[in-house]
């Protein structure tokens, strides 16, 4: 039997690169779209360059998507490409909608127009819930209250995916993924910023780590576990939507403490609000400061997912939890500094 063909948009991102590795290990032919850009970073997939097929395309270019889908005739499409930074979406809401919302519509339409029988995975996000107090833990039936242009654009994409499944019988699934991290997380995301800073701090390379809201609570999982859930959704008997999370929540503050502990520093805290500071309890040196510049215009306070449906229907559960996740990320950043 010929191997299955997969097409991944956003293959050069954190999730795309792990998913490509997973699918290669399962014998798939892996195709990925790359955006043409003079400064685009492909470091996460450089080690896969001879194993995957790369195609220039863009979620904002329908005809290129149609041609690509006709040419590849994929069995599975994973739509991971997105402008995925919440705070940046307040600066570029229109671009975020073009890429994250209508980009998804364009792929669904390309599937419908070409008539190719492919399964479709949409990368949805816990940001669609908006962390409303009293709704946690959030599951597949929790009402959505997006609080950012990113959350609203992703919600459009989620709904249109459900709509195409219901109206045209497409095998289309939306995975509502809570935060998931790894050593490949972009450096402008808070977790990676912290682990990188902890690694630099012990090597005397960085003075202070500047953070936004220390009390924001997140359900953080490990990206390689989460891409497995994506694949499982497309192997199920029928298409459906699933929340993917660990079922645990921790504050940004806890993430900091744990990361610096891994790096051999015990953090203490003093002050309140924007005056709060984290210090090295051994030397009293200030390590963490709050910078309001990192506050989101509208903060999502509390995210905690209930992944029991994925557990029951897909047999999925997270293997790596909070403590181990932080450990893996700090160790990787320390390793990288050694290079």
């Amino acid at each position, binding site marked *: 039997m010929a191997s299955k063909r997969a097409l991944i948009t956003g293959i050069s991102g954190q999730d795309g690169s792990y998913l490509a590795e997973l699918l290669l290990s399962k014998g798939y032919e892996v195709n990925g779209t790359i955006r043409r850009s003079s400064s685009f970073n492909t470091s996460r997939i450089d080690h896969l360059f001879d194993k995957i097929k790369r195609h220039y395309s863009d979620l904002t270019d329908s005809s290129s998507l149609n041609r690509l889908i006709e040419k590849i005739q994929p069995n599975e499409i994973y739509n991971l490409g997105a402008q995925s930074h919440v705070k940046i979406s307040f600066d570029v809401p229109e671009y975020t*909608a*073009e890429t994250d*919302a209508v980009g998804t519509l364009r792929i669904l339409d390309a599937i419908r127009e070409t008539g190719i029988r492919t399964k479709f995975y949409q990368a949805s996000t816990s940001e669609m819930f908006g962390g409303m107090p009293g709704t946690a833990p959030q599951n597949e039936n929790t009402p959505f209250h*997006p*609080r950012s242009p990113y959350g609203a654009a992703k919600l*459009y994409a989620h709904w*249109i995916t459900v709509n195409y499944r219901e*109206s045209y019988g497409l095998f289309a699934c939306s995975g509502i993924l809570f935060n998931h991290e790894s050593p490949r997380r972009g450096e402008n995301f808070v977790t990676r910023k912290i682990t990188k800073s902890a690694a630099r701090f012990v090597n005397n390379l960085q003075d202070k780590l500047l953070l936004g809201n220390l009390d924001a609570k997140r359900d953080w999982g490990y990206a390689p576990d989460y891409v497995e859930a994506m694949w499982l959704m497309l192997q199920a008997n029928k298409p459906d939507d699933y929340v993917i999370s660990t079922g645990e929540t921790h504050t940004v503050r806890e993430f900091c403490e744990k990361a610096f502990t891994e790096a051999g520093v015990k953090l203490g805290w003093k002050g309140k609000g924007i005056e709060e500071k984290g210090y090295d309890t051994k030397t009293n040196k200030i390590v963490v400061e709050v910078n309001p510049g990192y506050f989101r*215009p*509208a903060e999502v306070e509390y995210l905690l997912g209930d992944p029991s449906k994925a557990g029951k229907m897909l047999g999925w559960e997270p293997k790596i939890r909070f403590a181990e996740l932080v450990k893996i990320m700090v160790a990787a950043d320390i390793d990288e500094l050694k290079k």
Partner: protein
Amino acid sequence: MKALITGVLGQDGSYLAEYLLAKGYQVVGIDVGSSHSSLPGLEYVQGSLADGEFMNGLLIEQRPDEIYNLGSVSNVSRSFDRPEETFDVNLLPVIRMLELLRRQLKSVKFLQASSSEMFRQEPDPPFDENSLIDPCSPYAVSKAAAYHLVKIYRNTYNLFACNAVLFNHTSPRHSLDFFVSKIVKGLVEIKRGKKEKLKVGNLDIEKDWGYAGDYVKAMPLILEHQQPDDYVIGTGKYLSLKTMLEYVLNKLNLSYNKVVETDPTLIRPNEPKRVYSDPSKIMMSLGWRPEKSIEQVLDMMIEAEMEKQGGK
């Protein structure tokens, strides 16, 4: 007071323009059509809502006190064939206008015409401002996302931005793409001997029907209130398409079995069966009430259509 209305040539736009002009507003209206009915006092500008540069330029030049965003691709069935155009007209311009307001025109009030299409059967109707949003057409998805963006911009930047969630409303000015206008026109044609049969889709659908002329009166009320907020606008009652059809048949002395034919291609995929409102919030806090019953509106529509087609 200066208002800018998008989609001013549409049913709601034209009623709203008349109403605001009568209240003494200065009214600027935009739409894509080249000609417009000569509404005295209306400053008409031809252009597309989906053209970002045009819209930004116009808003900066005009500096209205209030914006009523009524322009949209409003046909649900057609949105299945043209989902991207629906997105481009129904969602992107909302983002662009809200961005312009928060960056440069913070004191401008903004009213977004949202739609009851955002709701579906589950959980049970009636639907109010807190009901679950679960859109099931590309049109509804675009309107639901726009609805959330209005809330996001209000909460994030303190803009005076409001959603008017309008349940079905009709009038003699309703476009022929819509069910009620189509049956009135079709049955009057049959009455006149111009054709023999009227083709219909699923008649079991039950909806909350009101008069467009009443619904536009809720819009300035929403912007006059001290606090920006979202309101459901409807009658709180529902009627099946079949009952409405029978009412018109009766008025025209036509027999259902002789003139009505079911056409399965007119049945929309995935259409909610019963959609009606709970308008208590707008009734209690703003004192708005629908004035005309749907029967009165149907009578107006039949009369207007008879006149249009000539003779008695």
